[in-house]
Each structure stands twice: as structure tokens, then as C-alpha cells.
């Protein structure tokens, strides 16, 4: 009896093992050849469109629904419904590729800038330049060339960069005043707003008041590409413009990383790894993030928004982009492209500007943006958003970015401790990613 019970139990255990293995692999889903086959709608009746998004903001989703409903109303014969499917930010790209693997291709999807080259070169997206340019009243020439560059391959455009949100510095003026430190806005006016000044203020406030000084939001010692908002001040770059050569070992990058390391482990200006600090909770002096985060601020403390500080090489504006692409293998790519043209036409782009600075020259004025951003003054919008987009660079992107991100993250871990050998760590980073850059 004991024997039989044990046999059954052991077999059950093996079955559990096998089951979870296959479950783990079942992301592979349906047979790939069958995935994404275009289905023509029966008798040309109205189709349903689905767009994957990562925002869960109710007011943003309400605006999308409003635009979607207006499109359905204007095109009742071709479109029956437009849905916006929310996928959490953290798992977004994983979820999107799993849907693609499972043959459940969405019609449209938001795409991170870091994944842009990979998606653009994959052939998965539809060229939308023709549809946008030919749509009446679209004003295709109004789109900024610099904003489109990441999403282009020659003359072909594979996604529309609906959000061009500059990185800026939010400061907690209450903490700064309490610690008797200089006000960053005054330093901006006197042209003394530098990373060194920000570091001194941050270290002093953290020491006197507790909490944290300067937080590069969403970096958290994992998402290292957000450090581009700091090392830009040194004109440092992770790899060459053609994406072929690692430049983590270049003198500018070594200097910038040494500065960051010192701010963490010498001054305590930047909180160390494994500590939690949230500017919007009120116990952080300043944070580098995108202006779209302004909506998370309440009136519990005094705050200001100033441009990114200048480094030894001057100020480098950085923007975070997000694009909307149409999948070739979706069920209705042409209809989806037409909807995208409607979703981003001048009138709707102005509505979307409430949350996402558009890539349209005519809309990038402090006046237009201030109507949509009541929390920010026209001066703040002019200095941070309008001026911030001019000459801005995007965060690092590469067609092999997922693997590069993982490799760099793993190698940089050696740097996030006291007494780390920065130059040798950066050399290790280059050794790890050189084959990936060229691969």
C-alpha cells in the first residue's frame, strides 16, 4: 500500500514538473506559421480595432475612448469598435511579443523608444508614411524631422512618435529652503545650474533632513539607460552613432560614471542601491523624470520644475519617446493605419498634448501646452518642454537592445558598491556588449 501510494505520488510529482515546464514554454503558443494571418472581414463589414497601451491613467484612457468613438462615428461602415488594451508598463514588451508569438497580433501598439530600432528593422510594422501624408488635413510636413528619425528607415515611417516628453528636474523647494540651500530656479537664472550644484544641494539636504537627495527616477540600479539624462552633461554615449562600437570606456563616460559613483558612495547625494525613495512622497529633494509625471504631484509640499543641469560639456536635453505602430500581420492593417492618421491628426494631437508633447512644430508652443497642462506655468513649459525638445537626444536605443540592456545591467552591478574599480567595470561592459552591438 505504501509502495503504491509512493509510486502515485512520485508520478504526480513528475507530471507537475512536466506540466510546469510546458506551461513555461507555452508562451510559444500556437503554431507560428498560422500566426497573424490576415483575416478579411466577412462581406467587408465593420471591423474591430485593438491598440495596446501601457498607461492605466483613467483620464488618458477616457480621452483615447473619446477619439476612438469619434472615429467609429465617422466611419460606421468600416469600424465597429476601437478598444485600448492596457498592459502594465513593467511587462509591456514581453506581453506584446507573447501576443505576437501566440498569433493574437494587436492592430496597433505603443512601442518604447529603446525597442524602436528592433521593431523598425524587424519588418513587423507597416510603413505608415503614405497613409499619413495622403490623409486630408493631416499636415504631414508639420511633423518634426528630429522626432521621426528613430522611427524611420529611409523615407519609410514605421511608427508615429506620439509622445516626446523631455526629462527635467522636479525639485522639492520646501526641503531646499529648510536646509538653507540655494534655490535651483535662481541657479538656472544665474547660469549656475550644474550637476555639481545639484549634487551639493542634494547631499546637504539628505544629510540634514534625512530622506534622499537626487533620484534618477526609474533607474533603480536596473534600468541603466535612464542615466543618459545625467551622462549627457558629459557628452558621454554608450555606443557610437552607428551602433557598432562600445563607448562605455570613452573618457567622457568614465568621468560621468565616476561622478555618479561619487555622488552615491562619497556624498550620499544619490541614494544607494536597495533603498526606496519616491519624490512624490515628499522625502526626496530632487528627481530627474519626464514632465508627464507632474500629474502625480499634490499640494503637500512646494515644488518647482527646472531644466536638466549642465555638466562639464554643457546641458544636453534628453527626451523620452513612445511611438504607435501598425502591425502588418494584424487583421486589418490598412484600417488601423487610417485610424492612426485620425488619432494623431492636428485636432486630436492637440487634445493628446495634455499628456504627451506631440511631434508637431505648430503645437510645440508654451501657449498651446499650457492650456493642456494647468499644473505647469508658461515659463516652465517654455524652458523645459519647448526648449527641451530642441536639440534633444533620445535615450539609448539599438536593434539588439533587449540583450544589450541585460548584459550591461549585469556588468554594471559590479560598479554599484563602494570602492568599485570603475574603469575596469566599464571595460567589462564593453567586452560583454561588443558582440551584441555587431550581432
Amino acid at each position: 500500500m505504501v509502495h503504491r501510494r509512493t509510486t502515485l505520488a512520485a508520478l504526480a510529482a513528475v507530471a507537475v514538473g512536466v506540466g510546469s515546464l510546458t506551461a513555461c514554454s507555452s508562451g510559444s503558443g500556437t503554431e507560428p506559421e498560422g500566426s497573424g494571418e490576415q483575416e478579411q472581414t466577412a462581406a467587408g463589414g465593420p471591423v474591430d480595432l485593438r491598440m495596446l497601451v501601457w498607461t492605466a491613467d483613467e483620464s488618458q484612457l477616457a480621452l483615447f475612448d473619446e477619439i476612438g468613438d469619434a472615429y467609429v462615428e465617422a466611419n460606421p461602415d468600416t469600424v465597429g469598435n476601437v478598444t485600448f488594451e492596457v498592459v502594465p508598463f513593467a511587462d509591456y514588451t514581453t506581453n506584446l511579443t507573447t501576443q505576437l508569438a501566440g498569433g493574437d497580433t494587436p492592430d496597433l501598439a505603443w512601442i518604447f523608444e529603446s525597442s524602436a530600432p528592433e521593431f523598425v528593422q524587424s519588418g513587423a510594422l507597416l510603413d505608415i508614411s503614405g497613409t499619413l501624408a495622403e490623409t486630408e488635413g493631416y499636415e504631414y510636413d508639420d511633423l518634426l524631422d528630429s522626432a521621426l528619425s528613430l522611427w524611420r528607415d529611409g523615407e519609410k515611417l514605421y511608427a508615429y512618435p506620439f509622445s516626446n516628453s523631455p526629462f527635467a528636474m522636479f525639485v522639492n523647494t520646501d526641503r531646499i529652503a529648510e536646509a538653507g540651500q540655494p534655490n535651483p530656479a535662481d541657479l538656472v537664472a544665474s547660469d549656475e545650474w550644474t550637476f555639481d550644484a545639484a549634487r551639493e544641494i542634494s547631499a546637504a539636504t539628505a544629510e540634514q533632513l534625512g530622506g534622499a537627495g537626487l533620484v534618477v527616477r526609474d533607474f533603480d540600479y536596473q534600468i541603466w539607460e535612464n542615466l543618459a539624462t545625467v551622462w549627457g552633461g558629459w557628452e558621454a554615449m554608450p555606443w557610437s552613432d552607428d551602433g557598432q562600437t562600445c563607448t562605455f570606456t570613452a573618457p567622457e563616460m568614465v568621468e560621468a560614471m565616476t561622478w555618479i559613483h561619487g555622488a552615491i558612495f562619497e556624498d550620499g547625494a544619490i541614494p544607494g542601491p536597495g533603498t526606496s525613495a519616491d519624490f512624490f512622497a515628499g522625502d526626496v529633494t530632487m528627481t530627474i523624470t519626464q514632465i508627464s509625471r507632474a500629474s502625480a504631484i499634490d499640494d503637500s509640499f512646494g515644488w518647482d520644475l527646472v531644466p536638466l543641469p549642465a555638466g562639464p560639456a554643457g546641458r544636453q536635453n534628453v527626451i523620452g519617446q513612445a511611438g504607435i505602430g501598425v502591425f502588418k500581420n494584424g487583421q486589418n492593417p490598412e484600417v488601423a493605419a487610417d485610424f492612426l492618421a485620425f488619432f494623431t491628426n492636428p485636432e486630436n494631437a492637440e487634445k493628446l498634448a495634455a499628456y504627451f508633447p506631440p511631434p508637431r512644430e505648430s503645437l510645440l508652443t508654451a501657449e498651446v501646452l499650457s492650456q493642456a497642462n494647468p499644473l505647469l506655468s508658461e515659463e516652465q513649459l517654455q524652458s523645459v518642454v519647448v526648449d527641451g525638445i530642441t536639440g534633444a537626444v533620445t535615450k539609448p536605443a539599438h536593434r539588439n537592445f533587449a540583450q544589450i540592456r541585460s548584459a550591461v545591467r549585469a556588468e554594471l552591478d559590479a560598479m554599484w558598491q563602494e570602492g568599485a574599480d570603475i574603469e575596469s567595470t566599464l571595460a567589462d561592459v564593453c567586452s560583454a556588449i561588443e558582440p551584441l552591438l555587431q550581432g
Partner: protein
Amino acid sequence: MALATLTAGRRARRPAWRRRDAQIGYLFVAPQVLGVLALVVVPLATVVWYSLHDWNVLTSTFIFDGAANYQRMLTDGGLHGSLAASGWFSLGLVTLNISLAMVLALLLNQRLRGTTAFRVMFFSPVVVSLVAWTIVWGFLLQADGGINGFLALLGIEGPNWLRNGATAMISVIIVQLFKNVGLNMILFLAALQAVPVQIQEAARLDGANAWRRFWSIVVPLISPTILLVSIITVVGSLEVFAQIDVLTQGGPGHSTTVLVYYLYQQAFQFNEFGYASAVSVLLFVIVLVLTLIQWQTRKRWVFHES
């Protein structure tokens, strides 16, 4: 008599599956068999098929590649590192889990006041959501988290548990240990309570001390449960994923990138579904071999099996 022999002969010649009782039996097991076929055998065969292909969902490539993915495994340093990480994790977890579960079960098998409360305390993590449990531990293990706060009260400066190469793996093992030790404890406890008191009493009368009684009477009698627990724990330890994803994302460096996390990265972060399928086949083979070894060696040490 002759008629009876003839009937018996006919019955013997009849195929087993045509017998009425056999057919009813097949009907009873059919749902389970169909379920296993649809949810285990077919997906497993499909994964093996995928593992023979270069499959990238973004570029829509699905090209037969023969054994290329398996050849790649031989030179993939990342895979070898993840095999080592999985080995350390399993070794640490299985050793600690079975030892602690046994000790707890022995303690709770005493007729003492308060044992029910302790049973509930150790078993309750088993029914808690794995991710919620891990997130709470993530807060506790932060540099400025609860554990270091407690150590600071004692004048000890705790390490940065999850960011330090020397402590990250043991931290993840401990989180998993306390999550599931209660289940093994209950299994051991049930087995201990089934050990006949008379045999222990007889051994005591023969002069055997507690240690001798434990090794010579208790362990052999509960050895079937030890086998079951060790198989379940080894299989579970090789499939750890959520804890790694929530606590360390495989870091610092690659120190906690266990095999399943590596597989996940290949498939869902790097879009290498073909290679990830090959890695999952490797994981299946490892689990199967380890289970078969445990199964085959049972005759040497499991009571009633020799």
C-alpha cells in the same frame, strides 16, 4: 467442468480492452488521459519541435535549424552560468528545506501545549500568494529594510542582501524555504504520526536510546515520505522563477540567473523562442533524470521497496 474450461479459454482469448469492466475503467481514466495528452504531451512535443527551429516572433522567422540550438548550448557561457546557479539554488534549498521540515515535524510531534499554533504559523505561508510573499520579503531585505533595521537595533550593520553577490542567492533560498517548508513539515508530521508506538516502545525496552530509535525505527518507517518530499522539493527548486523575477532579476551580475529565469529571458525578452524551447527541453531532461535517479535508488533505502 469441460464447459467451465471452455468458457475460461474464451475469456482468456478475448482482448482485454473489450471486457466490459475494462471499458468502464478506460472511461474513468479518459478525462485524465485526455487532459494529460492535451496539456502535457502535445505541448511537450511541440516544444521539442520548436527547439529545432530558429524562431523570432518579431521578424517572423521560423526556419528549421536542426540541432543548431542544442549545439549553441555547448558554447553558451550564460547557460552554463545559469546551470551552476540552479545547482546551487537546488542544493541549498533541498538541504535546508528537508532538514528544517524534519526538525519542525519532530518538534511538533511532541504532545506539548501550543503546537497547533506553531503548525499554523509554519503552514500559513504555503497558502499565501507567492508573489505577495516575495514582494513583502523584497521590502524586508532592502538595504534600509526591516531586517537591517532589526539588526541595527542590535548594533549590527546588515549587508545589502539582494544587491550583494555573496548574500543574494542565500536570501532567495531563504525566501523560498519559509514559503514551502510548512508543506513538507505537514507531510513529515503525518508520516511520524503513523509510526506505530508499539515498535518504538519495544525498541525502548530493548535499550535503544532516542537517537538509535530515530535512525533505526522512525527514519526507515517514514522513508517513503522522505522520497516523496525529496522528489517534490527537487522538482520545485529547479522551477523557481517568480522569486528571482521579483527580488533580483537574476542579479547581481548573473549570480541568481537560474535556468528558468534564463529561459524566460531568452524567450520573452530576447525573442529567441527556438533557443528558449531547447533550454526548456534541457530543463525537462534534467528534472526527469534527477527524478529517475531518486526513483531507482529507492530500493536501497526506502522501507517496503526492497
